[in-house]
């Protein structure tokens, strides 16, 4: 594999629900250490696209390749791959019956086959990266939304992913809690994590994004630097959407 080959390579991806075609042939390549933002109206297929990237949804056609491995190949061990594809959800989805620490160690122990002691060392390191080591014995219900989302990020980070997928990670948060999550994401981007972020936090995208992708009705309308997309886009659809965000 050459240094230039993408970490995440999506080619002609198609997905329908019944007669409803949600993704109509998506091509997108994300290279190592890149941070790519995906924006677009509700229902344009952003979540579906992310969920196809770790096979939470099975595409109808096209390929998704992660770190050179075709996820659709029947010989691919999808669970081994998934642990290298971190995912962060809008609604955090922490396991409510487990302490923060156990939320993180579960996959380390069951998927990465670490001993409890080794898993806890890795989990603690991940908790430190999101600034919540002191909350390791807290249950999700005892944490703020922002803290829960940072624990969820730590849960994915601890598995040492090659790429992280974020699906509107801050849109369920009270405005005053958004910053703490974005700060963690900035740190990750700076540390060289490859990230695909569905988010409409435009100020954050301007700072953190290497590239912004605008999706509408299941296709990528255009992509470019934050300046290009948010500034002087050539596409009327993009301009209309961006002006809505600014309001």
């Amino acid at each position, binding site marked *: 594999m050459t240094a230039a080959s993408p970490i995440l390579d999506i080619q002609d991806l198609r997905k329908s629900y019944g007669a409803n075609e949600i993704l109509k042939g998506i091509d997108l390549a994300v290279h190592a250490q890149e941070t790519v933002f995906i924006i677009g109206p509700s229902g344009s297929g952003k979540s579906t696209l992310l969920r196809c990237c770790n096979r939470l949804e099975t595409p109808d056609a096209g390929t998704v390749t992660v770190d050179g491995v075709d996820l659709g190949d029947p010989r691919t061990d999808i669970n081994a791959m998934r642990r290298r*594809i971190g995912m962060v959800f809008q609604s955090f989805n922490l396991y409510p019956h487990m302490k923060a620490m156990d939320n993180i160690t579960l996959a380390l122990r069951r998927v990465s086959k670490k001993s409890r002691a080794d898993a806890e060392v890795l989990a603690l390191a991940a908790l430190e990266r999101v600034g919540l080591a002191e909350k390791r014995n807290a249950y999700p219900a005892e944490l703020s939304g922002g803290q829960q989302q940072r624990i*969820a990020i730590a849960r994915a980070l601890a598995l040492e992913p090659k790429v992280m997928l974020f699906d509107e990670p801050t849109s369920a948060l009270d405005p005053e809690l958004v910053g703490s999550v974005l700060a963690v994401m900035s740190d990750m981007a700076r540390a060289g994590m490859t990230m695909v972020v569905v988010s409409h936090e435009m100020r954050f995208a301007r700072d953190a994004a290497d590239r912004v992708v605008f999706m509408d009705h299941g296709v990528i309308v255009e992509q470019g630097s934050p300046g290009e997309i948010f500034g002087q886009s050539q596409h009327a659809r993009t301009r209309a959407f961006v002006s809505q965000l600014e309001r």
Partner: protein
Amino acid sequence: MERFVDTFFNASVIASTWPKILSGMLITVELALSVVVTGLAFGLFLALIRTAQIRLLNAAIVVFVDVLRALPPLVMVLIIYFGLPNVGLTLPSFAVLWLVLAAVLAAFAEEIFWAGILSVRRGQWDAARSTGLTFPDTLAFVVLPQTIRMVLPPLVNRTIAITKNTALGTVIGVPELLNQATTAVSFLSNATPLMLAAIGYLIIFVPVVLFGSWLEQRFAFRKA
């Protein structure tokens, strides 16, 4: 008053029947434990099979569950106890009662477990699968622990209600608590054995009820 005491708490009747009542209690406890353990285990097993979403199997489970929930247990007990010998299969009365009650409990428990599994939010599955957990691991470590916390109250209530049907042993001659009492009543023409049986049931089931409430509190669900 004296007549009342004489009828319901007759000392000489107590003295002569308590060993029988006690042995009936033991049989009732044995039956109850067998029913609870096998019924809940089989109910959970059926709910787990249902998660595999195999159409034909699911349909079979739904039919089994609906039939067993609809039929009065007494009807099933009678049919099996008096019917099966005609096709050359004779089961001891204890086994008949155990089978019927365990199957009924399994049917109700399957419905309760299944509803509980369905009520775990999809995001929990997504999160677990996205970290690479297998389907069985996701069930075992993420979904079932939440399911069990949620279903504990209805499950405990249903289990107690069905287990009390061990008293149906009376009609087919299982020497359980109520049977021992009614037999003694017909010999002695005195209601004291029934009162002893009532006390026996309280001794058996009040701790179960208390244990159930304790369990529910212990595992009170922490909402995220």
